[in-house]
Every structure is written in structure tokens, then in C-alpha cells.
């Protein structure tokens, strides 16, 4: 790396990392995560004492034995009450005065169609009302169906589907994988777009401020373009590293607190399923870098052909489409990673970063396919660099009317 490119990288990097937008984005990401973790904890702790003492008035005489353990499991202290009129009045006053959280009235309607009444000191959170309803309704079903409690339980929770995949090489498929593949692909799309557009704006700034002329009097256009792309890319990697670091810290501190406060919310096992591992991070980094070099090159060329932000808005549309198309197909590709269409799309050079990443995450791409996609990306990067570099070289010094497509093609041939 020569000293000039290094100076350009340093400038791009420091200017961006020192900007307030970088600081905001870097802090906002983890804050959002903290919010997601803290919200259920805060909700759970809100008015805990009062809310958690539940008095059950069971007029059916058959529901209480089933309801009680379920409510206890959901974290309530449960008391039974005979439920005559004087007692109801006393309970109503107690709830009003706040000495107990709430009482439930279970009657024939509860047994018949799951309708029951809850008188509460304050409105229960949506999560809590679901928990209470489940406890009561599941018991009602259990009573009406009769039979072995555990079997009925299994029926009530929606049954289980055991899938045996008979073809080779296909791994298991879980909801968590689907979510992390989808979110990862989307994050990939967002960050590719964000950082490639940052390169375009930087090119445009140099062009419209005319500083490019001074800069190019002491370096070659390719040095400027390379330094710019590497500098902005390094900002992206820094951002990811900071996010991963703070996410790690937050989970280390926050996850135990979350589990302690809401054992019903998520078990340690399911939490581990959702957390992306090192392999996931490596795939993300590899496809981000590949995609970034492809798209930042294209965007640098777009920036060089424009003279204003408005022009750039229009001119970038074809490139944006190259990024949007894989996002349109990503759900389908994740669901059927081994369908012919999914495989074909994931080998379209401009779609590879997003779609091959998605297939790899759900385990639908073989190691050979992943390796092939890396080689394909390398060739795409070289091809884009060659074409975009030529457009950039000519366009960056052009003023006036935006060039037409035939003119741009002539630049590529002649430059």
C-alpha cells in the first residue's frame, strides 16, 4: 500500500469515525438492544407485589386444582376463595384498596367456552393476560377432554411434528435459523446500501467542490478511488466490531437479568439458539466485504457521472435495483435453499452476497458452493473495478450534462 493511498484511507476513515453520525449510530444500535431486553424486565417488575397475589373464585368446583399449579408456574401466589356474595364484596374492596392484585371468577361459562372475569387493581400487561388466560383455558379443556394430563397437555400446546429428512446433506431447520438468516440478509442489504452510498456521496463531494482537481494533480484516479473505498469499508467494519462487542457485553450482563426476571420469557437454551455464533459472523463479514467491494465500485462510478445529489438520486436507481432484487427473493431462498431457482439466483454475481449468505446460514449451501461463490465474488470485484475505474477516471473531471449510457460505454472502451 503506497503512502498516498494510505493518506486517503486515513482521511476517509478518521473524518467518518469522528463524525457525530457515526457516534450516534454506534450508540443507538446497542441502546435498541438494551431496550429490547430491558422492556420485558421492566414490565415484569411493574407493580409486582400486588399483581402477583391472585385470588381464584371457582364456582365450578373442578377448575381450581388444574388452574392453581399453572398460575404458580407463571409466577403468581394463588389463593382459593369460596365465592359467596359477601366474600366477593370483600375481595372487590381488597382489590380496590390494593391489598391483593386481582381475583378471577370462574363459572360454567368458563368451562363451556373459556369466558371468565378478572377484577384487577390495574390493567395487566398483554403478556400477563395471555398467561392467565392460558392457565384457565387449558385447565377447562383438560377437564372437558379428561384423560391423561400429559397427553392432553401435549395436544393443547399444539402437538409436535417430527420431520425426517431423507435426502443427504440437508441439516435441520429451525425457526431461529430462519430468523437469523432473514435478519442477517436484511442487515447485509442495509449496510451494503449504506456504505456504498457513502462512497458515492464522498465521490460526489469531491467532484462538486472541485477539490478533486487538486487531489488528482498529485495522485492517480485509481489511487483516490481505492483509498476512498478502503477507508469507508474500514468504517463499516469498525461499526460492526463495535456492535458485536457491545452486544456481547449487553448479553453477558443483560441476559442473566432477563432470565431471572422472566423465567417464562425465554429459557437459556432457546436464547442460545437465537444468538449468532462465530461461523455466522464470519459468513456475514465475508459476504459484506465481497458485496461492499462490488457495490462501492458501482456507486463510485455513479457518483463520478453526476454533478449533484439530485442527479445521483436518479442515476443510482439501476444499482439500487441490483440490491433490491435479492431482497425480494430472500424469503423464498431461505425457505427452499436447494430449489433450482434459489441456487441459480445465488450465483448471479450481483445477487451472490445476499442470497448465498442466506443459503449458507440455513445450511442450504454446500462448502463447495460457498467456496465457488467466493471465487465468483472475487471475479465480479475485478470486473467492476475495471469498468467502474474507467468510468470514474473520466467522469470525475467532467462537468456539465450528465453523460448518456452510450457515452459512458465509450469512456469504458477508450479510457
Amino acid at each position: 500500500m503506497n503512502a498516498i493511498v494510505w493518506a486517503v484511507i486515513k482521511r476517509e476513515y478518521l473524518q467518518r469515525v469522528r463524525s457525530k453520525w457515526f457516534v450516534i449510530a454506534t450508540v443507538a444500535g446497542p441502546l435498541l438492544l438494551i431496550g429490547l431486553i430491558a422492556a420485558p424486565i421492566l414490565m415484569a417488575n411493574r407493580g409486582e407485589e400486588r399483581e402477583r397475589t391472585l385470588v381464584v373464585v371457582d364456582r365450578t368446583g373442578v377448575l381450581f386444582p388444574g388452574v392453581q399449579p399453572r398460575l404458580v408456574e407463571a409466577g403468581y401466589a394463588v389463593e382459593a376463595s369460596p365465592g359467596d356474595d359477601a366474600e366477593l364484596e370483600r375481595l372487590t374492596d381488597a382489590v380496590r384498596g390494593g391489598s391483593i392484585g386481582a381475583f378471577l371468577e370462574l363459572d360454567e361459562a368458563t368451562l363451556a367456552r373459556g369466558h371468565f372475569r378478572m377484577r384487577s387493581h390495574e390493567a395487566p400487561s398483554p403478556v400477563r393476560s395471555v398467561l392467565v388466560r392460558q392457565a384457565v383455558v387449558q385447565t377447562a379443556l383438560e377437564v372437558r377432554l379428561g384423560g391423561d394430563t400429559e397427553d392432553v397437555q401435549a395436544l393443547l400446546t399444539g402437538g409436535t411434528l417430527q420431520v425426517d429428512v431423507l435426502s443427504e446433506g440437508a441439516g435441520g431447520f429451525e425457526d431461529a435459523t430462519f430468523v437469523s438468516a432473514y435478519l442477517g440478509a436484511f442487515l447485509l442489504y442495509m449496510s451494503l446500501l449504506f456504505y456504498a452510498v457513502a462512497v458515492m456521496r464522498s465521490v460526489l463531494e469531491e467532484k462538486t467542490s472541485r477539490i478533486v482537481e487538486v487531489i488528482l494533480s498529485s495522485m492517480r484516479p485509481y489511487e483516490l478511488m481505492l483509498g476512498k473505498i478502503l477507508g469507508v469499508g474500514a468504517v463499516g467494519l469498525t461499526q460492526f466490531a463495535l456492535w458485536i462487542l457491545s452486544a456481547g457485553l449487553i448479553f453477558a450482563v443483560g441476559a442473566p437479568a432477563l432470565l431471572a426476571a422472566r423465567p417464562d420469557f425465554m429459557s437459556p437454551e432457546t436464547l442460545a439458539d437465537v444468538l449468532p455464533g462465530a461461523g455466522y459472523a464470519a459468513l456475514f463479514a465475508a459476504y459484506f466485504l465481497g458485496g461492499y467491494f462490488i457495490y462501492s465500485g458501482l456507486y463510485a462510478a455513479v457518483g463520478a457521472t453526476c454533478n449533484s445529489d439530485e442527479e445521483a438520486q436518479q442515476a443510482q436507481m439501476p444499482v439500487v435495483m441490483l440490491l433490491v432484487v435479492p431482497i425480494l427473493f430472500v424469503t423464498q431462498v431461505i425457505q427452499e435453499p436447494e430449489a433450482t431457482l434459489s441456487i441459480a439466483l445465488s450465483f448471479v454475481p450481483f445477487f451472490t452476497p445476499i442470497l448465498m449468505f442466506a443459503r449458507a446460514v440455513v445450511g442450504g449451501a454446500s462448502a463447495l458452493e460457498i467456496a465457488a461463490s467466493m471465487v465468483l465474488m472475487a471475479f465480479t470485484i475485478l470486473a467492476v473495478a475495471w469498468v467502474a475505474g474507467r468510468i470514474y477516471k473520466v467522469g470525475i473531471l467532467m462537468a456539465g450534462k450528465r453523460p448518456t449510457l452510450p457515452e459512458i460505454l465509450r469512456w469504458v472502451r477508450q479510457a
Partner: protein
Amino acid sequence: MSDFALRLSGVTKRFGSHTAVDHLDLEVPRGSIYGLLGPNGSGKTTSIRMIMGILLPDEGRVELFGSDPDETRRRRVGYLPEERGLYRKMKVLDLLAFMGEIRGVAPTEGRRRAGDWLDRLGLQDWIDRKVEDLSKGMQQKVQFVATVLHQPELLILDEPFSGLDPINQDVLEEIVREFHRKGTTILFSTHLMDQAERLCERVCLISRARKVLDGDLKGLKRAESRGVLAVGFEGSEGWLEGPEVMAREAVGGDYHLVLADGADPQAILRRAIAAEVTIRRFELVEPRLHEIFVHHAGEAAAGDGGMPRALDGTGGVG
């Protein structure tokens, strides 16, 4: 070691069917202060861009310090382009350090030099401000500092005085003279003939992509001294028109008449007497640069490119 800091031979640049620079020859001796003069659109900026290697000539050759203008050689040049530009969001000192760094000045050294220059130009309180907070005049000064930070041997200034107020024009002119005294070779383009006349030792006049004439300013003036007639009079002006007069110009209450080749001043005098005007002054004078230019390129060439009159010293747009 070449005697010329810069040499152009037969340099030509075409944009489509338009020829921007047509077989330009130019030799800038080391240590000289050289003016590249011509109206807007005559090819000055294109020539300079080819010297800086930003554009490649279609024909001809550019030599910097005796050979091709590669990057190393271009780093010995300080270039102030016609269209000024800085990174608006950068702090002044950071920007200058970067501009030095891309021309081989270590960042710490660049910061030190930039600090000295900013002190000298009265911008010491602005070094940690963003460029966009500076006034236009201050930005011009910062741009000039960026041009000289790496202590170039050759300064190429494209319209350096445009956009500056008279006070700062004087400041810049003095700095340019100082660089000249220290032995720096200076090539600057301008459409302000007065400025060139004050500063230059040598000039090259170009019009419509072609060189009209070049050489030592004093020599040019001596050779041209029969070409301009200064007249002062009371009365109507009609007699000033005639085949002998290529152009006329009001200079300090009198008129300077640029004479056609071989024109006889006596014929003009006879017309003046016939018109019954009172003559105060009637003499051949040393021509002004503008008049030399008009004499050689013609009034039309001077006019259609937006060449201002010699008295119009207020500066045009860059």
C-alpha cells in the same frame, strides 16, 4: 538539468470537434515569473490541466523539469486550480495536513508549516474550525496555503487573484513576489492584463486556442511602441473612427488608440483638425498589455471571450 522548469511543444487538445488548445509551444525558464494571458475560454485552463497531467494532450509533449510529468515530478509543483475547492467538513489544520501528506510532507511537519502560514495570513484563530465556517476570502487563503505547503519549485496558479478583494489581492501579490525572489518558478494565468503587467517578466498571450505571441514583457512593449497613440482633446469623438484605428479605449480621461499595422498617425491628426476639436495631447506611447493583445489578436478575439477592458481591474469570476 534543464534550463526550463516547464516546456510545452506542439501541445494540442480536442474535445470532440472543438479544439481547446492548438499546437501550443511554451517555455518557462527556471526562476521566472510567467503570465499566461487570454480571455476566458481561450484555452488557459485546459493547457494548465495538461501540464498537471489531469488531462492528456492529444498531440505534443509536456515536460516538467526536463522530462515527463509523472507523479513524483508533479509533487514538486504547487497547483492552484481555477475552480477552488476544499473539503468543507474538515478542520482547516487537518485539511492542510492531508494536502501536504498526499504530496509527500509528513503530517506533523505539514501541521507545523500550515500553522506558520495561517499565522502569517491572520487565520491563526481558525485552525480548528471547519472549512465551511470560513468566509470565501479565508477559504481562498487556505487553498493557497494548501498549494505551497510542500514548498514547490514550480507554482502554477490558475486565475489566482479572482474572487479576492483588493487588499487580499495585494497580500497574495506580495507573497507571489516573495516566492519569485526565493527562486521559485511561477506560471500564472489571468485575464486581468493590469495584474500581469505589474507582476510578470514574461508573458504568453493566447486567443482562441492559439498562441498569439510570447516573450519578455519589456521587449514586447519596446517592439510595439509605435502601435499605440494617446490622444487628449475637447470636442466630439466622431473623428476617432477610421481605418487606421483597430480599437480605442478610455484611459484616464484620454483615449488610447490601437493602430493598425502601417497606419499613419498624420491621417488621424488631419481628421481631428477637420472636426475642429481642441487637441491637448497627441503622442505615441508604450502600449499596455491589453493593447498589444488587441493589436495582435484583434478586437473581436478580445471581445468575444469576455476580455475585460484594461481599466476593469475589479476581477471577474474564476
